[in-house]
């Protein structure tokens, strides 16, 4: 049985062969489209077993949620690969295939071992994409890799604890080692306090890399959280705090990529809240939001990518190019904006309503409203720069056709989901019994957006302003410094004097004798 992840990894190996551009395009298109079709025809309930060492692994296990997530991953993969195919070298493309393939395998994995292996493979491939894609991202890649591996190792340790407590590796509810899984998911989700890698990596890496990374990295974390850690109510508040933090930070940014990066933290906050509620509606809402978020955030990243490609920079001023010269990108951006703001008849609305419906506590409801309001505000700023502010930036080159194709494909899907939200429910084979377009939901959906417009106009001079870059305190760099200093002192102690070696040897002998004799 061919799985989409396996297909992608095969594609990666094929791309390593020395082929010319034409064959590269053909291979990439066949693999990405093939993976989408294969994912579409996966039957929920299917699973596949494999004996490895003394474990029985389940590399593939399909259920409704994983099928929907896999489907959107495959869609994102198709769009992202089409978008970036002109821009990246064959080797980077091959790494991107490994990355997408392992993300898909993680989604369909049925045991903790497979989960860990491909989780780590995602880390490795994405780190190497970052390290090798550009000359200025070496340190970023280093930082990113260390953070992600720390997360991966917590999964591993959690897996060991779970395994030694229960004796199996099945991917159901976690009983032992919950804090470690939480830590891992927190790093993947760029939870406040663990978020440092995200803005750094997404703003430094070349834009086509960011497009690919933003589809999978945090979303895999969300999906895994929905399986392993759902229904821990306290996390909902944590998600809220994280989202509010992301909101404040996003408002301060002058660079489009950073703004979008922090906005990911807000959107992931929605999903955390949905998952932490733990009800059927909450989890479904979170998964739907994941789908919608992938669609509009990818479109936004792609649009910013087009701006970078055509003008060279990603400052908000340069977004002004959108109003005039690049029509496809502009339309896509507008659709994505209305989607992320949660306006009815656009795609973000349905999942936001669903999560709001699932939330019972008034505090969280208010939090959700505030988050929607903040998101609208942030993207009004984005739109303001793109369409309303006068700018005199000029095109240096035309956007490639392939970029517009990728962009357009996702935009059509967004419109489709926005107009017919039951599409996702059908794909997931559930009926949540919610009427998306009744008065109550419409009103509560549109309110934050409507509020944000007058607020934006009133507070324009505070929102549209070049803030100084904050040099924030990075705990991890401090910790690293302590480790390096310790190592430095230790290595100073090794000055190569033989009498020291002999002294150490003698004391070891004495300690050994004492320990063993008594």
């Amino acid at each position: 049985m061919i799985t989409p992840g396996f297909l992608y990894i095969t594609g990666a190996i094929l791309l390593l062969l020395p082929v010319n551009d034409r064959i590269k395009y053909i291979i990439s298109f066949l693999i990405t489209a093939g993976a989408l079709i294969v994912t579409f025809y996966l039957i929920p309930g299917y699973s596949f077993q494999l004996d490895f060492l003394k474990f029985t692994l389940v590399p593939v296990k399909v259920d409704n949620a994983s099928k929907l997530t896999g489907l959107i991953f495959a869609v994102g993969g198709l769009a992202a690969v089409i978008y970036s195919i002109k821009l990246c070298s064959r080797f980077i493309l091959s790494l991107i295939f490994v990355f997408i393939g392992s993300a898909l395998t993680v989604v369909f994995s049925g045991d903790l071992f497979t989960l860990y292996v491909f989780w780590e493979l995602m880390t490795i491939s994405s780190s190497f994409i970052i390290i090798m894609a550009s000359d200025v991202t070496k340190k970023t890649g280093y930082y990113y890799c260390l953070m992600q591996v720390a997360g991966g190792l917590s999964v591993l340790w959690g897996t060991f604890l779970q395994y030694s407590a229960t004796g199996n590796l099945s991917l159901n509810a976690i009983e032992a080692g919950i804090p470690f899984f939480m830590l891992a998911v927190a790093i993947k989700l760029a939870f406040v306090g663990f978020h440092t890698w995200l803005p750094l990596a997404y703003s430094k890496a070349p834009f086509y890399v960011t497009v690919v990374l933003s589809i999978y990295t945090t979303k895999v974390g969300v999906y895994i959280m929905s399986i392993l850690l759902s229904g821990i109510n306290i996390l909902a508040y944590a998600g809220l705090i994280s989202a509010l933090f992301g909101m404040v930070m996003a408002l301060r940014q002058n660079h489009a990529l950073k703004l979008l990066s922090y906005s990911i933290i807000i959107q992931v906050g929605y999903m955390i809240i949905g998952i932490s509620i733990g009800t059927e509606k909450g989890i479904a809402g979170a998964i739907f939001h994941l789908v919608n978020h992938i669609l509009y955030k990818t479109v936004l990243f792609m649009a910013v990518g087009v701006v970078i490609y055509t003008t060279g920079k990603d400052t908000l001023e340069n977004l002004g190019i959108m109003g005039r010269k690049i029509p496809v990108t502009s339309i896509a951006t507008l659709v994505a904006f209305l989607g992320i703001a949660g306006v009815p008849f656009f795609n973000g609305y349905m999942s936001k309503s669903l999560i709001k419906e699932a939330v019972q506590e008034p505090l969280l409801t208010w939090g959700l409203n505030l988050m929607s309001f903040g998101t609208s505000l942030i993207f009004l700023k984005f739109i303001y720069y793109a369409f309303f502010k006068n700018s005199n930036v000029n095109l240096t080159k035309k956007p490639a056709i392939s970029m517009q194709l990728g962009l357009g494909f996702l935009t059509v899907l967004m419109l489709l989901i926005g107009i017919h939200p039951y599409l996702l429910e059908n794909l997931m084979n559930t009926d949540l019994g919610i009427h998306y377009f009744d008065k109550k939901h419409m009103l509560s959906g549109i309110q934050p957006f409507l509020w944000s417009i007058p607020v934006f106009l009133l507070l324009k001079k505070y929102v549209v302003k070049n803030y100084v870059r904050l040099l924030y305190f990075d705990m991890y760099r401090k910790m690293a410094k302590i480790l390096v200093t310790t190592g430095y002192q230790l290595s100073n102690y090794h000055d190569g004097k033989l009498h020291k070696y002999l002294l150490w040897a003698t004391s070891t002998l004495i300690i050994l004798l004492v320990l063993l004799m008594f």
Partner: protein
Amino acid sequence: MEAAVWLIILPLLTAFFIGISKLYFKKILAPLVTGSAIIYLYLLILVINHSYPPKVYNVGAWGLMGINLMVDPFSAMFLLMIAILFLPVIIFSVKYIKSHKHKYFIFTYLMTAGIAGMVLTADLFNLYVFLEVSSLSSCALVALKNTNKGIEGTFKYLIMSTLGSFFILLATILTYSLTGTLNMAEISLEFKDIPFQIKSTLMSFFVFGYVIKIGLIPLHAWIPDTYEDSPIPYNVLSSGLVMKSAVYALIKVLYIIFGIDFLDQSGMLHIGVFWGVITFIVAHLLAYQQSNLSRLLAYSSVAQIAYITIGLFVGTEGGLIAGNFHILNHAIMKGTLFLVTAIFYYSLSAVKIEDIKGLGYKFPILSFIFVVASLAIVGLPPFNGFISKWLIVEAAIESGFVYAGFFILVGTFLSLTYYLKVIVTLYTKTEKELLIVKPTLSLRLPTIFLGSLCILFGIVPSIPLSLINKIPKFLLDNGEYIRILLGG
């Protein structure tokens, strides 16, 4: 079947003929050494195939008095390691070594003879003799380049190694005077009546002596010094075989002579695991500080040996399997890393980490292999190091050493910090014009072979594990071993 005996004789003979060939016909060196290595490979495979059930060979038909060779799965695993490493290193060295070529090959063959002897013998004194053969030729190889640093390293190596050998010999003599025999099986039987305190003292001498050769902290200091300026292909054998053969000897002495029950009672298992944890934490921190690539790899070796120690001292079946698998994997991974380093040195005399800047674009395949081997040694999936580390952690947790398991993961993170540093440097573009000597196929092929094993054993670990899984049977239950040795 006398193939086992030939495993010791063939390298000795080859070393002798290399010496003669230098006097009369200089040209046949390359065919001589490769030919001998190929025959050796054949013999090794022959012996490994007949390792289960274990076989005993009496050399010269002297019975238990004389020299006994025994091939059990544990020694077969080491023979497998020689089989994997030896031929590639020899092929590599033919091209790589430029000065003192004959001496290099003589000592390499002598060293291999010593190692083969160590893993085959069932006699405590022979173990010591073969250990000395391998460590002294190893010392000579360190000094081969005749540079200041090399000589200094050799001196330190000699002093420390002799200190270790002294204690091993002392312990061997004491054992002989206590039991009146040097055959491991007989000693083990006699040891049942020796008082606890005396046995502990003896054990601490053995442990101390061997650990100097293995290089756990703080007895590790000579290792980086010797690696720094020695011929790099030798480092492959040194970290892969010489250090490991000391591990073999230690484990054999502890598990066969003293027995697992005594190890447990005396607390040696706890000491071993704790010692391992301390060692790899310190070694990782030190490795991060190194600017010399060989020294970095040396500290990494110290750390990996510590993982092996943890695996072997956990004292369960799973632990022994995991430790042995990591021995094999480490030999392959570190071998690959050293060979790539050697090619960098050969092509542009790169010694320091900053010297290899930008080489990722000049040597795409070799750099890829370097990356694979580093990720494997860090312990990331899907490479072989991950599997053995997984097994070690699992075994450690199973037998109650939860802290060891946790710190192994911390150590994985620490080792990533410096390997990733090297990798990032490898892929950083540089403006500098580099004068590169193109490595020939005979340099690249062994490297690629070892590198591909890293991936193969990671994806299909059942290939080596089918041999390794039989090891614990004869170590955990020393009665089995004794019965075969005495009965054979």
